């Protein structure tokens, strides 16, 4: 488990208290006792004792196919543990917490992010990566993670690094966007429009390299590469938005409101 990977997960769980203050403890651990990330209110001793207790149940739970989730409902609070790619997310929340939010965070949101990060940059989850790299070689990139459709999308920093020998070009940053459909007579059918802030960051990252195309992938794995432009309207709430014409939506077999991952094509 790399430091970059842990930092990314740490950033996510630090946001839990902002999303739902009733969530008092959040941490991610592995069965071997490794603590991947934890919030400040949880002590190491608490986590270690929980891991021991959890392993006792997990050993016996092989008979039901292992543990996917474990929930203990107490009179004051409840504890939930969700399995995600050999890691476990544990949260403790008061009974007053909105269960929809808690379930969305613990069973959908974080496991999905972990799965995506594992797919996009598997080397981040690998112990051997990054360890020989100097800190200044690490390049910060960004994943846009929409929390609610109606609100501003929140940007969660993620870290990644590139080790290509020559020339030293960073890996294309991966961004997650929510789809808006775009149409009209003057709209080219082969061009998507992307949040201009994100494009500016791409340009900053690659300096003189001209970026003309973007690679888009849906959460279902449909992919395409097409031209892109910045979103036009200056007052438009474009943060975390990608505007896609009908033809490309059909290619990707997706629709308005869905999420896609996009990264610039660096040639």
């Amino acid at each position, binding site marked *: 488990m790399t430091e970059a990977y842990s930092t990314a997960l740490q950033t996510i769980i630090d946001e839990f208290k902002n999303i739902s203050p009733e969530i008092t*403890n959040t941490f991610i651990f592995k069965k071997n006792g490794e603590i991947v990330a934890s919030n400040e209110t949880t002590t190491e001793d*608490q986590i270690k*004792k*929980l891991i021991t*207790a*959890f392993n*006792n*149940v997990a*050993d*016996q*739970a092989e*008979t*039901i*196919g*292992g*543990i*996917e*989730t*474990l*929930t*203990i*409902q*107490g*009179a*004051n*609070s*409840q*504890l939930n543990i969700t399995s995600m790619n050999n890691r476990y997310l544990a949260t*403790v929340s008061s009974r007053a917490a909105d269960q929809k939010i808690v379930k969305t965070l613990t069973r959908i949101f974080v496991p999905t992010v972990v799965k995506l990060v594992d797919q996009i940059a598997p080397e981040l989850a690998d112990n051997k990566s990054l360890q020989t790299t100097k800190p200044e070689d690490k390049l910060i990139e960004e994943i846009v993670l929409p929390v609610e459709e109606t609100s501003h999308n929140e940007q969660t920093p993620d870290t990644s690094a590139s080790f290509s020998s020559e020339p030293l070009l960073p890996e294309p940053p991966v961004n997650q966007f929510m789809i808006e459909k775009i149409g009209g007579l003057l709209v080219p059918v082969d061009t998507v429009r992307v949040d201009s802030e994100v494009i500016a960051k791409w340009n900053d990252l690659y300096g003189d390299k001209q970026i003309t195309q973007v690679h888009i992938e849906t959460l279902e794995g449909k992919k395409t590469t097409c031209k892109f432009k910045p979103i036009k309207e200056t007052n438009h709430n474009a943060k975390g938005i990608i505007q896609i014409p009908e033809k490309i939506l059909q290619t990707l077999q997706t629709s308005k409101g869905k999420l896609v991952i996009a990264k610039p094509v660096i040639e």
Partner: protein
Amino acid sequence: MLKPKTSTNEAETAIANEVIVTAVDEENSGFANLSASLTEIRKLKGVIGYILRSNTSAIIDLNEQDKIIEYAVLSTQMHDTSKEIAKQFNLGQTESILVEGKNVKVLCMSMGENKISVFMEKSATHAWIIKRILL
């Protein structure tokens, strides 16, 4: 199918050979009531069995006889572990424990000295079962 529990060895033999093993403690009326509730719950679609035990009595009713011992050990472990975790994180008195596996989920509850474990398919509605037990 109901058999009085006379000794540990006989009970173990019965567990291995019978789907249902029981020894009823007449002084524990809660046990009898829970037994009646669980008999009803057992009929629900998706419920594959249950274990009800007190300090002196036990009922095991499971579809998969070859897994009775494994399920009984898992059930005991869940009850014991939940106490430790609840204490560690100040959860208060444990009301229910749910473990979801790949195919099966297990709901455990403690009602006084009586400990319940209901085994069900993942599609079964455990919330309804909790309500039914608490009635």
